[in-house]
């Protein structure tokens, strides 16, 4: 069995960075991060779909010719770690380096190579200085619709129901757009204008990045540039290693739980182990179930990405990571499993298990260093897609959004209420913007009393959303962790999980978590109950003043206080400070 396991590692140190000037290295590092940032700004400026420029459902990055990450711009975390695979797989699908020429741009979305679902489309451009290949720029964005069976699906059974595949084709040849291929892409979409716009925006982004990358290399000279890059990688590696040196050697296992695979009702348990040896970290996904018949399969690059995101956020000192930060990390996957599915396994909901695995990794680390990580959040992005046809005008409309959840408490603070950490650069729409364009009234958008996990530090509160539909609205709900409570740490308590319900005008009520093309009729209520965050530390250590403030603010009820904080059962809201 072991020979089936695949180990994913970052490129090792070339051990020649020590010669580089540390000052120039820092300047090169800033310049590369700025080049990536320019790509991001170019994409935001030229993209057509709000999913890209408002929700920031994309990533951009610059790689060297060995597919080592030079720089990435802050964007969707879960995408950022997958781009190296997008680049290497796209290049190999296109026929390798020899098949590439300056000005070429590849388009690629084969999910097992991109580490996503087919809707997440990568554009990849080789970059040359004086005819020598120096690396690549890459952008991956969520395209609204590429002709899957529904605009958003939770029930696909193979990849071919999930949209058109672009297997690493040249959308631009020597700087010229291939009009015929472009037409094929555009025609295979329910929203052709958006797809045309976003495709062109991604082409602009990789070109912007290529010019900026080339300028950086020319400015410092090829030899000096590469010395600095090696030194920069060594620097990133040292930062991450200095964190893990503090952790005791051992194997720690965290357990993920998914409600179901979208097709059957069976709960899915997926253990992820974190193994520490010195400052080396191995993240082991090999004990997860075999690949699923529904779309909850996460292609291997997304397991790698989730691991890198989890580790670099924890140990990266708040800085944008590069290849060096990933060097201490080895990720193990097993082909044919839900974190390394093989074609044609469905992958539409790949994001749910992979984003959950970030917190599962933290769960494992907590067993050695509970103070180093937060407790579990609501554990999901609670993604909803809405569409329909307006009664008055007959026009079709569509919208979609993630929703905020309570965040886990940590050693030193209560959790807040935000979008899931896997979407940490993203915002959701104001209710007034929703109401100005969609046929609904937001009856409620409020923190949910008692939804937090208790503890010395309590979790963040979950949120209750109630939408009253003014017309018939179709929805696809991509929600998970509706049957498993967010965990607390170090004695902290569990929080409320996610759930959703529709209440019809006649009073009938149906609950659900995943649903494709579910019709919420005019007058009915759609309710989303986004989960809370787990608590940290024993509840009996929570300060009386903090309990009084929670009570005063209505974050918790007096029943909750009696149940979880018996040491302060007699507390009065008046004891709250200031």
């Amino acid at each position, binding site marked *: 069995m072991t020979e089936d396991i695949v180990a994913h590692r970052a490129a090792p140190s070339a051990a020649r960075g020590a010669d580089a000037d540390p000052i120039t290295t820092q300047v090169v590092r800033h310049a590369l991060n*700025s080049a990536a940032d320019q790509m991001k700004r170019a994409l935001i400026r030229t993209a057509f779909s709000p999913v890209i420029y408002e929700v920031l459902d994309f990533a951009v990055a610059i790689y060297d010719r060995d597919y080592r990450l030079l720089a990435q711009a802050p964007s969707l975390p879960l995408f950022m770690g997958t781009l190296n695979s997008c680049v290497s797989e796209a290049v190999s699908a296109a026929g390798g380096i020899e098949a590439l020429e300056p000005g070429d741009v590849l388009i690629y979305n084969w999910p097992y190579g991109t580490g996503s679902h087919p809707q997440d489309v990568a554009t990849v451009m080789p970059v040359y200085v004086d005819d020598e290949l120096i690396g690549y720029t890459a952008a991956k964005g969520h395209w609204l619709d590429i002709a899957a069976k529904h605009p958003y699906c939770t029930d696909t059974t193979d990849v071919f129901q999930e949209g058109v595949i672009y297997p690493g084709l040249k959308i631009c040849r020597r700087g010229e757009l291939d009009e015929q291929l472009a037409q094929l892409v555009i025609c295979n979409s329910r929203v052709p204008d958006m797809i045309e716009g976003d495709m062109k925006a991604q082409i602009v982004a990789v070109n912007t990045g290529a010019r900026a990358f080339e300028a950086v290399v020319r400015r410092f000279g090829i030899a000096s540039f590469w010395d600095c890059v090696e030194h920069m990688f060594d620097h990133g590696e040292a930062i991450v290693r200095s964190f893990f040196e503090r952790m005791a050697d051992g194997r720690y296992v965290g357990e993920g739980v998914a409600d179901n695979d979208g097709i059957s009702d069976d709960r899915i348990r997926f253990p992820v182990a974190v193994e520490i040896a010195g400052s080396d970290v191995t993240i082991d996904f090999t004990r997860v179930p075999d690949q699923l018949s529904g779309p909850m399969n996460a292609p291997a690059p997304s397991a790698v990405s989730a691991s890198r995101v989890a580790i670099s956020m924890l140990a990266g000192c708040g800085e944008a990571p590069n290849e060096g930060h990933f060097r201490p990390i080895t990720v193990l996957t097993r082909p044919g499993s839900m974190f390394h599915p093989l074609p044609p396994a469905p992958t539409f909901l790949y994001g749910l298990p992979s984003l959950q695995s970030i917190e599962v990794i933290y769960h494992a680390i907590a067993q050695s260093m509970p103070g180093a990580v937060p407790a579990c959040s609501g554990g999901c992005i609670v993604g909803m897609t809405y569409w329909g046809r307006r009664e008055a005008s007959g026009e079709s409309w569509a919208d979609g959004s993630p929703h905020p959840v309570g965040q886990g408490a940590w050693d030193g603070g209560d959790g807040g209420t935000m979008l899931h950490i896997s979407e940490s650069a993203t915002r959701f729409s104001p209710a007034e913007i929703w109401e100005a364009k969609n046929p609904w009234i937001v009856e409620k958008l409020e923190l949910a009393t008692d939804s937090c996990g208790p503890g010395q530090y309590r979790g963040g509160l979950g949120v209750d959303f109630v939408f009253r539909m003014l017309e018939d609205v179709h929805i696809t709900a991509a929600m998970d962790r509706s049957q498993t409570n967010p965990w607390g740490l170090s004695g902290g308590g569990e929080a409320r999980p996610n759930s959703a319900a529709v209440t019809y005008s006649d009073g009938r009520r149906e609950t659900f978590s995943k649903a494709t093309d579910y019709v919420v009729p005019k007058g009915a209520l759609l309710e989303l109950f986004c989960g809370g965050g787990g608590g940290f530390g024993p509840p009996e250590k929570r300060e009386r003043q903090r309990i009084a403030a929670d009570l005063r*603010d209505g974050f918790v009820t007096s029943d909750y206080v009696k149940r979880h904080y018996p040491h302060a059962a007699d507390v009065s*809201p008046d004891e709250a400070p200031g």
Partner: protein
Amino acid sequence: MVTRIGVDIGGTFTDLVVYDDRSERVFEGKVPTRPGAPEQGVIDVIKTHVPQELVERASYFLHGTTVGLNALLERRGAKVGLICTAGLRDVLEIRRGDRAEMYNPFWKVPEPLVPRYLRIGIEERMRADGEVHRPLARESVSQAVAELRAKGVDSIAVCLMNAYANPTHELAVGAIIAEQGFEGVISLSHQVSGEYREYERTSTTVIDAFVRRRMADYLERLEAALQGLGFSGQCLITRSGGGSMTFAEATERPFETIMSGPVAGAQGAAKLAQKRDVDLLITADVGGTSFDTTLIVDGAPAVLYEGEVDGMPVQTPWVDVRSIGSGGGSIAQIDAGGLMQVGPDSAGAEPGPATYGKGGTRPTTTDAAAYLGMLGPAVLASGIRLDVDLAQKALATVATGLGKSEEEIAKGILRIAASSMANAMREITVEKGLDPRQMLLMPFGGAGPLMTTLLADELHISRVIVPPLAGNFSALGLLGADMVQSAARSAILPLDEAGLKRASDVLAELQKVTERRSDKDGPDIVATLSARLDLRFRGQEHSLSIDVESEGGRITEAAEEIAERFKKQYLRAFGSVLRQPVEIISVRASRTVALPEIGDADIVGARTDAEPVSSWNAYSFASGERMDFAVLPRGAIIDPVAGPVIVTEATSTFYVDRGWRIAPAPSGELMMTKDRTSTDD
């Protein structure tokens, strides 16, 4: 008639610039800021630098201040209660769900200005189209008011859903609060901002309620103190969105003045760009703790319609000034991975850079520059003499860690600081689809002229304009601040003749609002009214604000003309044009009263008691070695001078590297140009 006094309060210094129309002279002054009593710093700087008779005949006092900003940053303000639509009382706390630090899993949401127990929902609901969905239950309002009064709030903010589309419920709530005898500040969201996005509007309304009393008290004290000095002219304060407003209006709308500091500099840059007919200009304002940059395109700074303070959005016009935490006082240190970082930690005013000899021991950008000789034999206007030995000691603390000499570290600090500043400038230009190489660079602020040639070389900019009084330029910018009132309302309408007709109705109302607010600005005033429409392609969120012609509150241009102009600008901004129809999102009205123009004036810098020297040994980045720099006072530049040269002014020092040439320009500026023959890349 046009004599005016400008005073800008910064974190470290309170700066003065005066224009005297009798002598046609501009002069400057500087005193340390008095954090506990900022108005006293204003009085100090006037008393010490401005003759009594000038104070008495001055027509205007123009002011930039961080008082409102500091009240917010330090959370010193009123106890505010919030009345909102039932079911939506947590808008202030849930925000937009985002984090300021995306790589930080422990990032903490800033405490909301109003805690949850002071946020009360009432029964009512307005729809987005302005129709009443659920009528206002007056008794729920009375209960809420009684509850807030019992809890001892000083101010009540009211923000109801979709009030931008129909304010009747908010007005009714306001009336009930007053009827019940509440005597504190009442702030209604639709009067603060007519735009949609309930979180942003609630945040702005709450900020208004939070700072209004404090700001009013401050402005009253200041005005009284100025009158005590014999000043009898009009008092104006800068707006975050550019222009200025009267103290009386600022007392009503304090949130419009929150970001008055950096804006004055941007405004001065815009005036200069207009005067010199420069179409693309980029500023580099380097102060003690931060670097601010703004693009000035066609003589106007980019204006956003939303700003942010300490994570809280402010829905009001906001000059697009980008900041990074890198200035003269930024501290260099070695990070966990062994590379050197410069900033964002700063030595601030106390202890300041080590070279100031006020007890600082950690190396800053200023220490690096002093050590390299880039500041010349500087004696600062505030009397501080630079101590190079102390700079060297501070640099040594980092040098040993990296195994480098102090000289290497000093050069490194400047290169790292310049590269992050240049990156910020590159990014704001790329964002607008522009290229920094086409731009004219304008440095100012205490350390701006020091960084100029480093920044220009990084960005391949070959032309630089150094304004007069560069070190005090923000205060100089104040003198040109026209009086402006503005109002806006979201109204989603098709861009066709019928839509324009309705937009005109909104415009007429908005103009009445600005007119009403300006009652206080005196009788002999000629105002210019202008109108803008925020437009977008249907289905898009990208929007542009387009000037439209109007007369008497009616838009006089045809829909097609406006659409054509929008499409042209859209193409420039976003790279392509869409097929979808164009729609209106917001209508904006503004009313401008220009202050009388300042003619060509003699600009007189403050004096220093530095001994004159003819040359100074300093490091040349262009040559990669130390060499002798000529040292000239600014006034001595009458003919073009080739670098290397250090030009001294009381509040700033210009480092002009080899390969650059500096020459006087018509109205007191200096022009710097890069030699074409230079071999530098």
